[in-house]
C-alpha cells in the first residue's frame, strides 16, 4: 500500500486529504454525508494506507464506550431507594 505514495495512483488520494477525512469520520458513521462526499470518503479509504486504521480505531473506541460498565449501585443507596419505593407505590 505504501507504494501508493510514489506512483501516479497516489494522485487519487489528493481528492480528499487525510485531514479532511478525519473531520468527516463521525458524519460517515452517522450516515450523514451526502452521496458525493460519501463516495470521496470511501475512495480515500481504499487508497490511503493510514485512514482505514484511523476509522477502525474510532469504531473500536465508540464500541468500547458502549461496553463500559458503570460502578455497581451501592447496597446503601439501593436500600434507601427501595424503602422509598415502598412508600411511593402506596401513594406516599
Amino acid at each position, binding site marked *: 500500500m505504501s507504494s501508493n*505514495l510514489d506512483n501516479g495512483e497516489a494522485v487519487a*488520494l489528493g481528492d480528499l*486529504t*487525510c*485531514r*479532511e477525512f*478525519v*473531520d468527516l*469520520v*463521525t*458524519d*460517515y*458513521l*452517522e*450516515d*450523514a454525508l451526502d452521496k458525493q462526499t460519501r463516495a470521496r470518503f470511501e475512495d480515500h479509504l481504499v487508497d*490511503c*494506507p*493510514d*485512514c*482505514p*486504521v*484511523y476509522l*477502525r*480505531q*474510532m*469504531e*473500536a*473506541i*465508540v*464500541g*468500547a*464506550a*458502549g*461496553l*463500559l*460498565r*458503570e*460502578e*455497581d*449501585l451501592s447496597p446503601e*443507596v*439501593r436500600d434507601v*431507594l*427501595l424503602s*422509598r*419505593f*415502598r412508600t*411511593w*407505590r402506596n401513594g406516599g
Partner: protein
Amino acid sequence: MSTNESQLAGSPSRQGPPDIESGLIAGLRRGEESAFETLLQRHHTSLVRLARVWVRDASAAEEVAQETWLAVVQGIHAFEGRSPLQSWIFGILANKAKRRGTRESRSRPFSAYDSDADRDDLRGMSPDRFVPPGEEWAGHWTYPLADEESCPERHVLAEEAGGFILRQIDELPGRYRSVMLLRDVHGLTADETCAILGISAANQRVILHRARTRLRITLEPYLREGANCVEQLG
C-alpha cells in the same frame, strides 16, 4: 462493513429486548419491588453520572436521580412507550437536572453546561499531525498511524482501558459529556439524544465528533503501545 452495521455494533443499546422491557414496565405498574430494583441496578449510577453535567456536586446529582425515580414510579402508568424506557427515564433526569442547574446558577456565575459554549477547548487533531499546506502531500498524515494489526478490538479496549475511558469522559465539558454518555455509553439514538438535550441533529453530530476525536487523542498512547501503557495513562 457498512455504515449501518458499524453503527449497530458500535452502539449496543443498554436496554434489554422489548419483551423484557415490557415485563419491567408491567412489573413496575403492579408495584413490584423486583422490577424497580432491576431498573435501579441498570440505570441509577448512570443517572447520577449524567446529572453531574448540570448540577453542582455529587450529592445534588444523587438527589436529582432520586427525584427521577419518584417521577418514574408516578409516571409509569401514563408511559406510552413512544420511546424506549431508558430514553424516557434519561429524559426525566435531564429535565430535572437542567432545572436544578438553572437554580444553582443563580448563585454562581456560569452553569457548567452553558459556559462551554464559550470555550473552544475541544480542538481536534493537532495540525502538526498533517503535512502543512503548500508542501507535497499537504493534508496527509505526517507519520503512519499504526499498523493495522495493532488496532484493538472494542472489548479488549473496554476491558483494558475502560476505567481510563470513563474518567476521560467525565473530564469533558458538559455538553460533550452529555452527548457522549447518551450516544456512545448508553446507546441512545441520535434522535432520542437530540430530544433529551434539546439540540439540533447537526449540532449533536458536531458535539459527538469533537468528543470522540478528543477521546481518541487521549487514547493514542494506548493505541500505539497497547495495554502495558494503561497505568501510565492514569
